[in-house]
């Protein structure tokens, strides 16, 4: 481990040194067949060939180009590590690639994302895409990535057990208690409490639900009343048994399986779980409802904004850039967004897609989620996000497990963040 990391660090250094001293203009290489290859790195979408059809359509519009799609590991941590190694080594093996919303600032600062502003003006991005996602991809007035699809946290509830979704935290706790009383196999509310990125999402949603500010801005909301109240609330869910102990080791899939097996009344998850519960053979088919996350006072809650954008590799040959951007435009067009929504249930990042009647017809669930995406809020936008999240994960986990008081965990997190990044 130690050696490999040291070696890769050194190769990274020597490579960047080599590149900066030569500084030669790179030219795109054609394959023997005369076709120019464009390589797309993307995360697996699901069982359908809709994505491949989009790529073939691009090829027929651009004779002389062949598009190769290469899937990344579906774990976003592993994908991040892949990009860290490949892009630090100035890899030219791929031309466009998906970027998680929380990586954009980091990759832009590192110089790995081509500034797309000349070809995709920031104003155009502001006009076409959901306003809250724009702040994550347009940084310092420059476009670094084009949003592809968005994701957000929603509340799932069992329509056969409760008549309506709870609007407040008290409501949720009371309903869960009433229904699960005397039923040992049925848990109340499941959410993602394992020490990983999903926990950070759940905590930020609770902070906003307790009245935390919309935009973390310079601070990170760590030493605030809302943050302390949020951690107290999550910890009390576990301590009082409203959430089963399995929540402390659960990620998205674990909670989805618990919920889908009929062992929970409520679940916080991303919209993907709905399609799973409606699948043929699922015991919950037709018994699941979606609602905004509850809050302290009962106004609809804000989910965390997630999702993927397309960026262009800054290291690729100059004469390939225009084509790469054309491909990004093609994949993020309104038509393509609706195709992907219909085929994979991915929610478009474009505002105009939600106004298109075709979306309501072909992907009614996605269309119905539009208000949730409009309310979704970004996690702190900072180049240090991954570093920050690593600290927050450990401290949030300590608070919900009850081994540190929320105020102590938050104070520790704040001092660590400060030392590593100067933020907070």
């Amino acid at each position, binding site marked *: 481990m130690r050696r490999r990391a040291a*070696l890769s660090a050194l190769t990274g250094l020597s490579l960047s040194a080599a590149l900066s001293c030569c500084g030669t203009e790179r030219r795109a290489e054609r394959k023997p067949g005369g076709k120019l290859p464009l390589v797309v790195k993307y995360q697996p979408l699901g069982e359908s060939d809709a994505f491949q059809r989009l790529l073939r359509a691009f090829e027929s519009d651009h004779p002389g180009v062949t598009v190769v799609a290469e899937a990344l590991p579906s774990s976003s*941590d592993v994908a991040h590590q892949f990009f860290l190694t490949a892009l630090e080594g100035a890899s030219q093996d791929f031309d466009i690639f998906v970027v998680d919303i929380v990586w954009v600032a980091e990759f832009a600062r590192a110089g790995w994302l081509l500034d797309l502003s000349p070809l995709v003006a920031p104003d155009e991005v502001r006009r076409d895409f959901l306003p809250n996602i724009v702040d994550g991809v347009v940084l310092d007035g420059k476009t670094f990535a084009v949003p592809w699809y968005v994701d957000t946290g929603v509340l799932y509830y069992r329509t056969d057990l409760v008549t309506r979704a709870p609007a407040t935290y008290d409501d949720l706790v009371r309903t869960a208690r009433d229904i699960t009383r005397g039923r040992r196999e049925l848990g109340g509310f499941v959410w993602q409490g*394992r020490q990983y990125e999903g926990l950070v999402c759940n905590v930020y949603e609770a902070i906003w639900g307790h009245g935390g500010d919309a935009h973390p801005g310079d601070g990170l909301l760590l030493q605030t009343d809302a943050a302390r109240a949020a951690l107290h609330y999550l910890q009390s869910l576990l301590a009082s048994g409203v959430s*089963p102990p*399995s929540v402390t080791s659960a990620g998205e899939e674990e909670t989805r399986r618990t919920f889908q097996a009929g062992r929970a009344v409520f679940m916080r998850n991303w919209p993907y779980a709905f399609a799973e519960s409606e699948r043929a053979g699922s015991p919950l088919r037709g018994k699941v409802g979606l609602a905004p996350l509850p809050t302290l006072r009962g106004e609809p809650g804000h989910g965390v904004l997630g999702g993927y954008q397309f960026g262009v590799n800054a290291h690729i040959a100059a004469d390939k850039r225009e084509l790469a951007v054309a491909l990004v435009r093609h994949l993020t067009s309104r038509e393509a967004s609706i195709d992907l929504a219909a085929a994979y249930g991915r929610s478009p990042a474009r505002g105009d897609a939600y106004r298109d009647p075709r979306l309501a017809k072909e992907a009614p669930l996605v269309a119905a989620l539009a208000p949730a995406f409009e309310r979704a809020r970004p996690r702190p936008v900072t180049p240090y996000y991954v*570093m920050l999240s690593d600290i927050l994960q450990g401290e949030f986990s300590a608070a919900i497990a009850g081994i540190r008081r929320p105020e102590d965990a938050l104070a520790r997190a704040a001092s660590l963040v400060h030392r*590593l990044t100067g933020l907070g």
Partner: protein
Amino acid sequence: MMAPAVTVLAAVALYPTFASIALSFQRLILVFHEQRFVGAGNYAFLLRDARFWGALRNTVYFTLVSVAAELCIGLAIALLLHARPPARTLLRAAILVPWAVPTVVSARMWAWFFTREPSRLWGVVSLPDIAWLGTPGYAMHAAILVDVWKTTPFVALLLLAGLSGIPSSLYEAAVLDGASRVRTFFSVTLPLLRPILAVTALLRTLDAFRVFDVVYVLTEGGPANTTETLSIYAYKTMMRAGDFGYGSALSVMTFLCVLLLGAAYFVWMPREDR
């Protein structure tokens, strides 16, 4: 004649080690092209870093408990196999199965078992309703259990080889002297097995101290960093957060600990046993 060997050793072992040490004196965040010399700054922070001390404590605890359990259970299995039970060859092959499965695969399998609701092994053995991987205190022991399950066969096989090397004439002599089986074990078997026991303990200790994969797959160091070992902390700092300076300082500390353990072995072992 030694030159090629020394050159290779220097290239593959010494160079990266010294490179790590050199990196540990810098603030180096590759992603931001941020690199400057900070002297002992990383180490000064490390001494005050509660997370480092926590990781060190976790690592030491993991190493002590898992190695002790592996040696005891491994020795018991080796003695059983050495007693020539029926189908000995088959048994010897069978106990190796956990060792043969790649760690990541077996850890994934255990993770699935620990997080099932309700957790049951073959539908028979039922675990108490505890979030094994999510409750501080339990998660570390779950990781130790998986490590012991996986590595005991390896220990047993090494000790079995040691047992086979003890001349049978000594056992015959013990029988003639009227020694009990317990007495024979403590006066013949254990003293003659000591060199191989010591080597096995050393190998396992050094391995366990650098543990990464079992724990990472099970918990990623959670909950609340209570299963975070030094290797996991260093890995997260370097590969996830991209902070190579501080990550290297953590690696160097791990390296120093392993070096100390190795040195302790050479100091404490009688010369003829090494």
